[in-house]
């Protein structure tokens, strides 16, 4: 039986006084991909922000491979092996591609899988542009850089916030292939996506959020066939 890479148990998160996440629970098994779906404002990014430590959950537990991370500072959560590919990519515009990756390369041990060469092997286009400022990259290239940067910290759990957002269809397909490749290598991934087809094609399990609550959860194929649930919570079909 696969171990659990990430467990969120009954967390509640607040922005100031407004209660955003209500008793959200989800489980990501090792080596699997969990798609976190929902409409705008459903609490997807808030969930990722809470996992990363930006929002301190009130009550509930978050654990990564059995270690509690709830309430830790973001930089310590990264050390526990969690990395985020942020929404809107957020690369460092004035740093070169190489420097963007260099910045993420911290506290390395010899057994680490990811280094700059490997990122360049995975994303050959980044190697071509390694001396260029990140601001001069195309959207797709910036997305690859953001993914590469997250991988440089050698995560055991990778959180991805809408990696296909604002990309041309052929680039979306390429990003999809990259994510599938990472999952195949055994990386545990939480994918937040608006692109339903992409998410369902990549995911093992799906959790759907609606107004800060878990509305449905199940295997990707079960959810894909459950048109009523998709219609009610995502407004498709």
């Amino acid at each position: 039986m696969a171990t659990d890479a990430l467990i969120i148990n009954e967390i509640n998160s607040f922005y100031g006084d407004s209660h955003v996440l209500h008793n959200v629970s989800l489980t990501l098994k090792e080596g699997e991909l969990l798609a976190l779906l929902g409409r705008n404002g459903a609490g997807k990014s808030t969930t990722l922000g809470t996992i990363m430590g930006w929002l301190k959950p009130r009550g509930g537990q978050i654990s990564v491979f059995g270690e509690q991370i709830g309430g830790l500072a973001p930089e310590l959560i990264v050390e526990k092996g969690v990395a985020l590919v942020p929404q809107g990519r957020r690369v460092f515009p004035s740093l070169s591609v190489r420097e963007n990756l260099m910045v993420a390369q911290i506290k390395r041990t010899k057994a680490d899988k990811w280094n700059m060469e490997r990122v360049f092997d995975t994303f050959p286009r980044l190697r071509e542009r390694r001396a260029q400022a990140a601001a001069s990259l195309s959207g797709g290239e910036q997305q690859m850089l953001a993914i590469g940067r997250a991988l440089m910290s050698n995560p055991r759990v990778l959180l991805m916030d809408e990696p296909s957002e604002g990309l041309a269809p052929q680039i979306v397909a390429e990003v999809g292939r990259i994510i599938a490749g990472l999952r195949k290598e055994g990386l545990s991934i939480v994918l937040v996506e608006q692109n339903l087809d992409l998410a369902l094609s990549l995911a093992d399990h799906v959790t759907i959020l609606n107004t800060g609550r878990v509305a449905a959860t199940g295997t990707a194929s079960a959810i894909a066939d459950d048109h009523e649930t998709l219609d009610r919570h995502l407004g498709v079909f």
Partner: protein
Amino acid sequence: MNRTAIQGWIFAVLALASLPFILPSDYYLGIATHALVLAILALSLDILIGQGGMSSLGHAVYLGVPAYAAAWTMQNAGLSPLPAIIFAIALGTATAALFAVLALRARGLGFLMITLALGQVMWGAAYRWVGLTGGDNGIRLATRPMVLGIDISSVRAYYVVVALALLVALVCIWHLDRSPFGACLRGTRDQPRRMRMLGHDVWRIRFLAFVFAGFWGSVAGVLYVFDYLYVSPSALSLPQSAEALLMVVLGGAGTLAGPVVGAIIITVIKTVVSSYVDRWYSLLGLTFIIVVSVMPQGIVPGVRGLLRGARK
């Protein structure tokens, strides 16, 4: 290293080496020495401003404290020059570490005001604590001491010392800029939140940058006191801090050549032009306004942009 960088370094070395032969007299070489000492101070401040995004109005502390420390220990504690220099730089750097802890509680305007206040505290102490600092009279050194058995008393010899120190400072700061730490520092300047998300302790990065800047400021401070053979509260004053800031902004923050160019221009206006023009302060202001309106990024990035445009 790309071609432009190599050309830049060759130019810098040649320019520094040829100045003693080009300048008409020791008087002008002395002014060049003053300019280069302040160039090191401006370079150290630019670590904070250009790379770290932290504008300080108290950087003269790291010029004045080691200058006083070196002068005082040699004059009153009978220390020989080398231990005095080491003590002075260590004290200046330690002061930077202490003040970093206080100033880094805030960002932006708050940071600026704390550095300003700390600078004023040190200036006030130097001005009022007459028993230690000699108050407004300052501390005067009789002659430039022998360091490691080398006679640096002549204007020419001291110019060589300062020019070499500037080159070492340039190489170190250039190296910092290209190192992973430099990338991290610029990362914290642009997106501190993202840096935490990548597992960095942003405070620690800023602290180390502040201490590094304090170290090079202290080197400038020791060179300063042996240059003028005199230190008074003005070395710690707000105008001195503001002048260093002006040098960085005028020359171009975040570039290696910018602070040096800024230091040279301001020193030339202050010392050479002021002997011909009465209202040289107005001239300095006017220069600043013109440069900032024509080249908001500073002279070095501005000229670079013009050259790139001309090539196209």
